[in-house]
């Protein structure tokens, strides 16, 4: 696709702008910012990726993945209602998910140890993990807030913090992972996944594209469940002290 052709696609940005203006939706500014940001960010990433792929050096791959993790941590911390000290918990979760998935993929030689595979898959894994992290944190903090009396009841009857928070933790883990599982049930029927569509458009064999997409889908299942569970078990101890007392103040939203 040439830059001239790309400029024609701006029609798809103009349509929501016109509609927003007509129906007084007030979305013009955000739409413009989103369009400009995606152009700049994606072009920049395109050039950076080209450099990393050409260099064939592992250090650049690691740096690129680290950059993704830092950006995901920053975004999840900003968007999700928070728990005291959540930044490092998010960071550790994303690092562990990345290490786990790449260890399986590279260790079992499912994908070759090449930049285009590692970076592309890492982007999908970390991105999915970030969304899951936000979903989990929002639900978990809401559950803890609304069920404070239940937490206090269990503590007062001689329960441990883990027992006192168990129901809220499980509810939040389930609620955050269900969208991933449910969307996979209708995949191919309702929507064609982005990566698969991209490969097909680029001229790849559709069956090969499907096989790769299946790999990603299975990977995202692991990512979803592992992210929520890890984040949950890293987060809940922050809500209690060593005397097993509930620390409501640690539920406060962090300044972004």
């Amino acid at each position, binding site marked *: 696709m040439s830059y001239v052709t790309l400029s024609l696609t701006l029609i798809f940005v103009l349509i929501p702008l016109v509609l927003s203006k007509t129906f007084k939706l007030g979305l013009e500014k955000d739409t413009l910012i989103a369009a400009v940001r995606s152009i700049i960010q994606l072009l920049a990433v395109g050039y950076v990726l080209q450099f990393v792929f050409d260099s064939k050096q592992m250090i650049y791959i690691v740096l690129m993945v680290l950059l993704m993790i830092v950006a995901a941590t920053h975004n999840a911390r900003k968007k999700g209602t928070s728990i005291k000290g959540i930044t490092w918990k998010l960071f550790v979760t994303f690092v562990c998910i990345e290490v786990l998935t790449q260890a399986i993929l590279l260790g079992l030689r499912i994908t070759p140890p090449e930049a285009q595979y590692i970076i592309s898959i890492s982007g999908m894994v970390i991105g999915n993990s970030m969304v899951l992290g936000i979903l989990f944190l929002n639900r978990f903090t809401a559950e803890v807030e609304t069920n404070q009396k239940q937490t206090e009841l269990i503590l007062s*009857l001689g*329960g441990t913090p883990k027992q006192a928070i168990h129901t809220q933790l499980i509810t939040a883990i389930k609620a955050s992972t269900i969208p991933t599982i449910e969307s996979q049930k209708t995949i191919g029927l309702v929507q064609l996944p982005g990566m698969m569509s991209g490969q097909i458009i680029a001229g790849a064999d559709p069956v090969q594209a499907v096989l790769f997409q299946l790999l990603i889908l299975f990977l995202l299942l692991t990512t979803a469940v592992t992210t929520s569970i890890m984040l949950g078990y890293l987060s809940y101890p922050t809500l209690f002290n060593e005397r*097993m007392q509930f620390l409501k103040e640690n539920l406060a939203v962090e300044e972004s």
Partner: protein
Amino acid sequence: MKDAALELKHVHFSVNGLHILKDITGVIPKGKITTLVGPSGAGKSTLFKLCNGLQTASSGDIYIKNKRIGSYEPTELRRLVGIALQEATMLSGSVMKNIAVPLTLQGKQMEKEEAAHLLEIVGLDQGFLNRDASDLSGGQRQRLSIARTLVNRPQTLLLDEITSSLDKVSQQDIEKLIVKINQEFGTTIIWITHNLEQAMSIGDYTWVMMDGELVETGPSDLLNNPSDARVKRFVKGEIE
């Protein structure tokens, strides 16, 4: 003190610079019913949370059976000093599930006979076991809440305004139940109440708290003739 169920020495509690409890010193006698009265915001419920270990005093010492509160494992302390709250919070599920919670938390199972016996103590028949806890009336919930606390066989039972939202009949039933628990099991009772008549008729002793301070203590009839000027106004209903 030898016959103390609970002893407080210069207990302070503050949050964000706000002094909620100020220099509380006093003894709760073992095996007796002590009522805790005072206007809203006096710090009564906070004092309970300190005694049950749900919060820790900013300074001062609390002794349970002559042992510093901090020397108990939190779970052990909370089983020793049970607490029942006004809201009588229930977990979703049956009465059986709710009454068994203290044992479930210890990884044990409660036999149906034991659950039925506990319900009988609090005046509920065993037909309640399979009912959903959310379907119970206010009085029944309070009874179940007390029965659930009794599962841990606490030596001291803290009751936080457990009758304030109940009708007169349910209120009297709960009063009888508490006296029965105190007499049959020798459980020390500390009862927060806004009802001064109840404090005098049920309590052996009374603590009057105001603005985070313990202003007067003694046998419950002190409420008939308090010596502190603020307590006099409170008893007359001039301070709420």
